């Protein structure tokens, strides 16, 4: 049908082209820019430097340390988020009352706009004068914890990590929960009849059947952490202690003042080419992570 072909084109092309404009095109152009020194946003001053930007980045302590930092976030934040997600999934499927209410409550922090969430934690929860953490620890008689300056340079990273875990638990709980709910009831029931405890049933039956779901969740978590920007940036813009690779890229390209200060010239020097090179490195790492994780969790069709 001729009509059909035309319709396919006119229905599909606008969406595909529009999306390519904000995905494929920027990747290609960034890759091109990464081989140049670009010191203004008008793009008029460009100097070919070969791999110069990449070499500079590899020698930049801030850039390398930022990867160590997201490594810690991946590991410890991952432990916190996945641990909580499994715990909540187990609790929610144990036949408790009010399941859908609690499920909604667990997901809610994910929807709080990041600036509001960051302000809630830095200005209220961790406030040294009237904060919730101070009041709770005082009530428990833990004075050293009550007087801890969470938002000081020493502890801001950990404060941010706690808030970030809290903000991410909901989404991963829903993913794990979706997997847990697909595990056939009869399997678990027969195991409990045979004398297995709830915990044994969870580790011996539910967990192995969740392989594919866990693979998806781990890939998602890794990519999210690799590109982590909004939470630490909103939490403590000016603190070097929370700089991630994406924040470093941002400060190279736009200066730390934000709001596209590079264009107005207010921030002074911008390193557009080097920022693009950092973007290329992040893209390559995302591909690498995806490949490695797919090797670790080899896809196996489990029938149940």
């Amino acid at each position, binding site marked *: 049908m001729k009509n059909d072909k035309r319709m396919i084109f006119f229905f599909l092309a606008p969406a595909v082209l529009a999306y390519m404009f904000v*995905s494929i095109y920027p990747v290609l152009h960034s890759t091109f820019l990464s081989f140049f020194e670009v010191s203004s946003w008008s793009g008029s001053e460009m100097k070919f430097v070969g791999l110069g930007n990449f070499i500079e980045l590899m020698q930049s302590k801030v850039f390398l340390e930022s990867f160590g930092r997201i490594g810690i976030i991946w590991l410890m934040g991952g432990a916190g988020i996945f641990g909580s997600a499994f715990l909540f999934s187990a609790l929610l499927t144990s036949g408790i009352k009010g399941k859908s209410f609690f499920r909604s409550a667990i997901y809610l922090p994910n929807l709080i706009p990041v600036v*509001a969430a960051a302000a*809630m934690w830095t200005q209220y929860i961790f406030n040294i004068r009237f904060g*919730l953490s101070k009041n709770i620890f005082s009530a428990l008689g833990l004075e050293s914890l009550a007087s801890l300056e969470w938002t000081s340079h020493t502890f801001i990273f950990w404060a941010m990590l706690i808030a970030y875990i809290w903000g991410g638990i909901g989404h991963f709980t*829903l993913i794990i929960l979706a997997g847990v709910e697909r595990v056939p009831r009869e399997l678990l029931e027969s195991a409990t009849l045979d004398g297995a405890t709830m915990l044994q049933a969870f580790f011996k039956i539910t967990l192995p059947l969740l392989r594919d779901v866990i693979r998806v969740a781990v890939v998602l978590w890794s990519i999210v952490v690799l590109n982590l920007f909004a939470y630490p940036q909103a939490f403590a813009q000016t603190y070097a202690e929370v700089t991630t690779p994406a924040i470093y890229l941002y400060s190279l390209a736009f200066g730390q003042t*934000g709001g*596209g200060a590079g264009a107005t010239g207010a921030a002074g020097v911008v390193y557009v080419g080097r920022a693009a090179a950092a*973007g290329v490195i*992040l893209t390559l790492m*995302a591909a690498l992570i995806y490949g490695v994780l797919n090797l670790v969790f080899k896809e196996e069709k489990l029938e149940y």
Partner: protein
Amino acid sequence: MSTRTADKVKRGLSRSVSYLILAAWTLFLVYSFGWILASSVSTTREIFTGKLLESGVHIQNYIKVLTTNHLGKYFVNSLIYCVISCTGILLLATPASYILSRSNFRGRKIVTGIFVAGMGIPGMMTMIPLFMMFTRLGLTQNLGGLLIIYICGGIPFTVFFLSGFFSSLPTELEEAAIIDGATPFQSFRLIMMPLAQGALVTVTVFNFLSLWADYATALIFVNDENFRTLQIGLQIVIRSMLNQGNYAGIFAGIMLVFLPTLIIYIFLSEKIVSNITAGAIKT
């Protein structure tokens, strides 16, 4: 017998622990929001002395952040961004998702591949060439730049969501329409669109919530304070209020940003949560 009683006790105990953990999580949320809400209508002195609401409700805090600190203007800006973007996304994504769910054409895999691969690209990297282009075109001084990115960027999620929905509809309806002499376009517009209304609303709720909360893109692409979004506005307001030591104002600002999300969530949490759960299974 005794083992059975022990089992019962154990089960009862683990049940209580379950409720305790879930209640603690919920209590933390409710208490924090309650405290911030109460602080947002108290004075800063009351916040520091722990006597919230002692001198009654101070709505002035909200009036001040809305007018003097311009959060009212930013609030309207964010609404405009969200409404235009959500509409634009639907206009582009709905026809595309219909085709992806119905026609088997050459290049179908490539199209899906583009959408999937794009989601793994670091967002911050894509902003560099786009910012360069938009700076040259003057699109960072008005609504244009941010709208283009919001609309284009929202396409993949919306396409996956809607094509999942279209696939679940029986094809007999359109076939019957075509036999009756309708063109494929007519059958799409007159038969499929009315059926899709619920799905369009659901996906728009998702798009709205994520655009409302957007931080990084707005931080970079809006240069002019007349077009600033609420999130960026709040960040700036918080910074200036910290300098003045106006904590009541900070908490009023937080509530203002969070309330639209909370209201939507109170009415639609069941739908939102179950759709994310359904999406998790498909991936």
